């Protein structure tokens, strides 16, 4: 490496070393039977398929809710109860209600009766199939890269640990505190956007 061109990030990896905890690899304890996984995964994928094929947008939205709930179930199997809760409360309880609301506000009878797919849909489908094949072969070939283990995360204190990552332990800030603050601005912007766009007179 030429010392003339110093990029601090690469020059001093030790300085930016976040002390990320890699707990001791212990064998995965069975959480639930694999059937749980297969059931939830099938529900997620099948209803995902329904989302993009249904004629009626409300049916799509309801299928999407099923997908979201199945994915929340998968999170529970992965010892991520907090994320599962957030998924339910934000997605299923918030975003999807918004979607249903808008579908009903802009409910046009004719939309569900006309052509559902755009003119280039075969191209899109083909490209997506190729994408799927690429992904699957990559996962198949590259699986050596992933650790052959599932670390058992402490489920009982999941929320507390996420809080520690977001807000930091007592007295010092967490790794994601700054991103958290920026996320609050993101939500503020979203509120502003929704109000500006939908209100007739600001």
């Amino acid at each position, binding site marked *: 490496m*030429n010392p003339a061109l110093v990029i601090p*990030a690469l020059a001093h990896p030790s300085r*930016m070393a*976040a002390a990320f905890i890699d707990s001791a690899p212990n064998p995965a304890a069975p959480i639930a039977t694999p059937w749980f996984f297969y059931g939830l995964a099938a529900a997620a994928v099948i209803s995902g398929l329904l989302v993009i094929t249904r004629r009626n947008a409300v049916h799509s939205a309801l299928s999407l809710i099923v997908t979201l709930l199945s994915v929340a179930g998968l999170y529970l199997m992965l010892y991520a109860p907090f994320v599962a809760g957030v998924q339910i409360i934000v997605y299923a309880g918030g975003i999807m209600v918004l979607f249903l609301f808008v579908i009903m506000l802009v409910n046009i009878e004719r939309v569900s009766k006309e052509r559902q797919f755009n003119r280039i849909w075969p191209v899109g489908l083909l490209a997506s199939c190729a994408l799927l094949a690429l992904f699957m072969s*990559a996962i198949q070939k590259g699986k050596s890269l992933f650790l052959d283990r599932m670390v058992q995360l402490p489920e009982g204190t999941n929320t507390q640990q996420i809080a520690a990552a977001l807000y930091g332990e007592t007295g010092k800030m967490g790794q994601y505190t700054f991103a958290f603050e*920026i996320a609050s601005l993101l939500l*503020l912007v*979203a509120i*502003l956007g929704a109000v500006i766009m939908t209100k007739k007179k600001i």
Partner: protein
Amino acid sequence: MLPMVELTIFALGILLIDLMIPREWKWLNAVGAFAGILFATVCVWQIQHTLPHGSIGFFNALLVDRFALYFWYLFLASAAITILMSARYLDIEDEQHGEYYSLLLLSVVGMMCMAAGIDIVLLFIGLELMAISIYILVGFLRRDRRSNEAALKYLLLGAFSSGIFAYGLSLLYGLSGSTNLAYIARAVSGPRAQNPIVIVALLTTLVGLLFKIAAVPFHQWAPDAYEGAPTCITGFMSVAVKAAAWALLLRILVFGLLPLRSIYTPIMVFVAIATMTGGNLAALTQTNTKRLLAYSSIAHVGYMLLAFVAMGTSPYGSPAFADGFKGILLYLMVYTFMNLGVFAVITSLRHRNVIGDEIDDLAGLYSRAPVEAVLMLLFLLSLAGIPPAAGFLGKYYIFLSLIESQHYWLAALGVLYALFGLYYYLRIANAMFMREAPAGETARLPISLAMRTAVGVAALATLVIGVFPEPFIRTVNWSLGIVR
């Protein structure tokens, strides 16, 4: 104090004060936003003098190095000029609201995070903060159908690309077990770089990034978003958003995924050629100025991608690498001023009942606003890369790096396309100087003082960078940590 904090305080303050001031006094919002930018500049300046060697803030999320500071200055400069351009335009459109300025400042906050973040979470959230603010600003003329359409298209494609980008980031996390770019760089280096999953991660991330910088074939959103957006926002998008996307791309591809450059550089060659070709050829036939400039900005991305190719094919730290990097940064700086200048002139064409974004609207500009017309010519020549103007400097370094890395035919192609560019820029100049103003539109253009300032500053910068490049090159060297 971090400039982000300062900008946020001003953005919130504007939102609150906006509620209290009467309609006629709404322009005070612009003053407030401008003050915010000035204060933020002071903050950045202070940081520059207290942190000589770049430092890591907020527990490894932010890396405030010279690279970040350079981009922060760029964002602040373009936001300042955009605010100068906006005040009058919004009055004409009858959309003078505090929210506009607030969103502008918040988008700058997002950009700053993109330039300084070394944590993919922060990079992603910064990207989204910027992108969502810009979606709203693009659709800010709510009663205008074109603005609506532009916002909707931009949002759909932007959100789609963010999703793909996030998928790539999730794989990168999976490969490294950390969200920090330094760990990711370590995890993808060595023999693992050939692994298919690493390549999928790279490809999805790359697609997201190319979407954001509007490179062909992921450019479709750009012309539409540029054409439909309020003109001042088009200017802002074409410079600040582009610079931020470039900062993100450089952070991720050069700082984080450098070990993978043998994989992404060949892709970049094709993308660069396609982008130059697509941008330049499509620009030839446009009749709408904003659309033409959108395609021309795509073409400019193509030139910058050429520099990226040069960087990718030469060893890390070699002169070609350094010149390529320098070329991109210089190009972004120069482009900021010249393109904002062009858009400032186009914005000033907007007056009662005339939208002013067709080339025909520029006809006879010389007789209606001689100073602006001449300065516009300067900007156009600069965009085309004609020597005395600043645009030449960026192109010079890019072609230099290409030659240093022995990509002669790529350099030749770049020069050829630059000639194409000259043709369509001169079409605009032709309309301004050679054609008569349409009947009933011969009166002097009413141009506000703020707008004159904006055009003047942009022109001054374009000229000074072109004529006395030395301090600016030194600035770029400084920002890259090259001791010379």
